[in-house]
């Protein structure tokens, strides 16, 4: 039930964020996590308090899955004083050290060497901390990926690469055997495997499968087996088909059983590929929750997000002196 609440929290957060952008509350490009909720929520639930995480431009879902305060997250994205980084990071760079997120990069493969480095530090200290490197499929196209796989494998470092491939059934796949028009390696797991890193591919909309795969990988890493790689596949959310995200239909748990409220062009995704609705249907079908209970969870998640957005909108912009602060850490 907690997993269900967190998935709904992410969904409502992102839909609300798109609304804030449409209202002109913040400017610039941004990336939402809709359609990948059943990856981060069960995957990150397998981690311990002291583990490290590094993520990218598509970080909102990762932070919320790890228990981030949605008010501080909204505030950061809106460039406000009460944001996680005093408004100086923004959507691309939300870091929250208290949750283990040391550094978040807007360069697709930027964090891969860093995550390998945090794993190196943990191993050097003989701690059982592991590091999770949260990347998208595009990150494998940059040179930092193979260089880091090589070192992580050679030095048997405790790092788990989670590659979220949200391009299943993408254009390149449909046309031929390639992942896309920009990646010759297919399946993507061939790349880490070439560097002797055990890798597997799983369905990122199947929360149970994600949880099982991550529990196993985390255990292997803690036992000293070295780096592991997991690719999760999800079907791209139809709201991201435009240059800017646009919500085809606001998520309501009733969509789990009836998608007639969704415009025709987006209906199939909500019917068969929406990981949140799939999870809700499973909970009800297994008898783990009633439809009424689910509706209650949804209501409380929705309220939490509304409250968080109000908090962020009430937060002032940082004082101008903030622009000149924290270039260097004090000795």
């Amino acid at each position, binding site marked *: 039930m907690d997993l269900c609440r967190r998935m709904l929290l992410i969904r409502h957060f992102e839909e609300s964020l798109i609304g804030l952008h449409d209202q002109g509350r913040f400017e610039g490009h941004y990336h939402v996590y809709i359609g990948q909720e059943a990856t981060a929520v069960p995957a990150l639930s397998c981690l311990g308090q002291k583990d*490290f995480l*590094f993520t990218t431009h598509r970080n909102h879902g990762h932070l919320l899955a790890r228990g981030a305060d949605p008010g501080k997250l909204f505030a950061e994205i809106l460039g406000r004083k009460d*944001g*996680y*980084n*005093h*408004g*100086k*990071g923004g959507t691309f*760079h939300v*870091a*929250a*050290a208290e949750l283990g997120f*040391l*550094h978040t*990069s807007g*360069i697709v493969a*930027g*964090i*891969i*060497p*860093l*995550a*390998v*480095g*945090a*794993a*190196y*530090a*943990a191993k*050097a*200290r003989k701690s059982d901390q592991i*590091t999770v490197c949260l990347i998208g499929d595009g990150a494998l196209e940059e*040179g*930092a990926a193979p*260089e*880091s796989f*090589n*070192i992580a494998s*050679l*030095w048997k470092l405790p790092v788990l690469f989670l590659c979220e491939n949200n391009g299943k059934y993408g254009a390149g796949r449909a046309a031929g055997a390639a992942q896309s028009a920009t990646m010759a390696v297919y399946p993507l797991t061939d790349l880490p495997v070439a560097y002797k890193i055990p890798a597997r591919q799983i369905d990122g909309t199947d929360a149970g499968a994600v949880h099982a795969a991550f529990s196993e990988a985390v255990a292997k890493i803690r036992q000293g087996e070295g780096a592991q790689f997991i690719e999760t596949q999800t079907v791209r959310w139809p709201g991201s088909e435009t240059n800017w995200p646009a919500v085809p239909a606001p998520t309501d748990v009733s969509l789990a059983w009836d998608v007639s409220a969704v415009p025709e062009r987006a209906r199939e995704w909500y019917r068969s590929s929406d990981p949140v609705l799939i999870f809700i249907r499973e909970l009800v079908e297994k008898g783990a929750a009633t439809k009424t209970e689910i509706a209650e969870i949804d209501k409380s998640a929705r309220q939490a997000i509304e409250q968080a957005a109000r908090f962020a909108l009430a937060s002032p912009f940082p004082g101008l002196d903030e622009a000149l*602060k*924290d*270039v*260097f*850490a*004090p*000795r």
Partner: protein
Amino acid sequence: MRELAYYEAKLEALSEIMADERVHLMGGSFLSLSPRRTLFQKIVQRYPERVVSPPISELGFCGLAIGAAMAGLRPVVDLSTGSFIYEAWPQVVNEAANAFYMSGGQTRAPVVFHILHGIRGQGAAQHSHSPQAMLWNCPGLEIVLPSSPKDVKGLLKSAVESPNPTIFVDHVQLFEIRGPVPEGDLVIPFGQAEVKRQGKDVTVIATSLEVQRSLNVADQLAREGIQVEVVDPRTVAPLDFATLLASVEKTGRVVIVDQCHKSCGIAAELAARIAEEGFDKLKAPIRRVTAPDVPIPFSPPLEEFVTPTEPRIIEAIRSVLR
């Protein structure tokens, strides 16, 4: 005071920093490929677990060092030839330099990158670079340029204690220079320029190897009665501009010497600041002695022609005294 060769002082610092369990050395050319390199093996043998040899993957291992620093270690990375840092550029300038700022002061990256810069003798265009000016244009990086045995020891000790990403810019032609180094612990704080020689007629601001060349020039000109003051910033980020400006105020004439290319180099920035803040103290135009805006050529006479050599420094000093 005892006298040490530059390479001995550097080796002593490398050995002493290993007392801190958080320090890991990555790469093995801290003493370059010079005949002195074998001395580094003593450190490797003493700390085999904390001296590692990564693959030829600058982007990968520099990023690894930054991530390890974020997670609590104090890695000191040897990139050997200065231009090799370009292979790691995205990690150094876009991840390490920005980390503390864009995390709102949460994440520190106390890593040291050691590079051997400059014109070293037949390095040609790809092995003679001085990347320090480009790096100075990346807020968040500390930049250190030792020029004497005492400084290389004290500044390296200080670099390892810094909470910020630090570029340690060394020059292989300094290695055999000898000079006084105090016994025991020696830490030289960043942001403290040193007047290496007092003089009243003209200020020469120089960095790295060019400090030694400028001191030789000062000796030569002293015989003619020209008193040259040689000022070494020692670190450009942070920069002790007050000491530089005080010297310019005293002499009213200034020559700036470094091995970066002329446009947007270290000398260019120092000249701009002196013009901005000390214009009324100047009795003559500021002169720069740098590499011209051309790649460094291989052929020995051509290489010497573009190097900031002693005759070029002397010519510049004479021109501001006219």
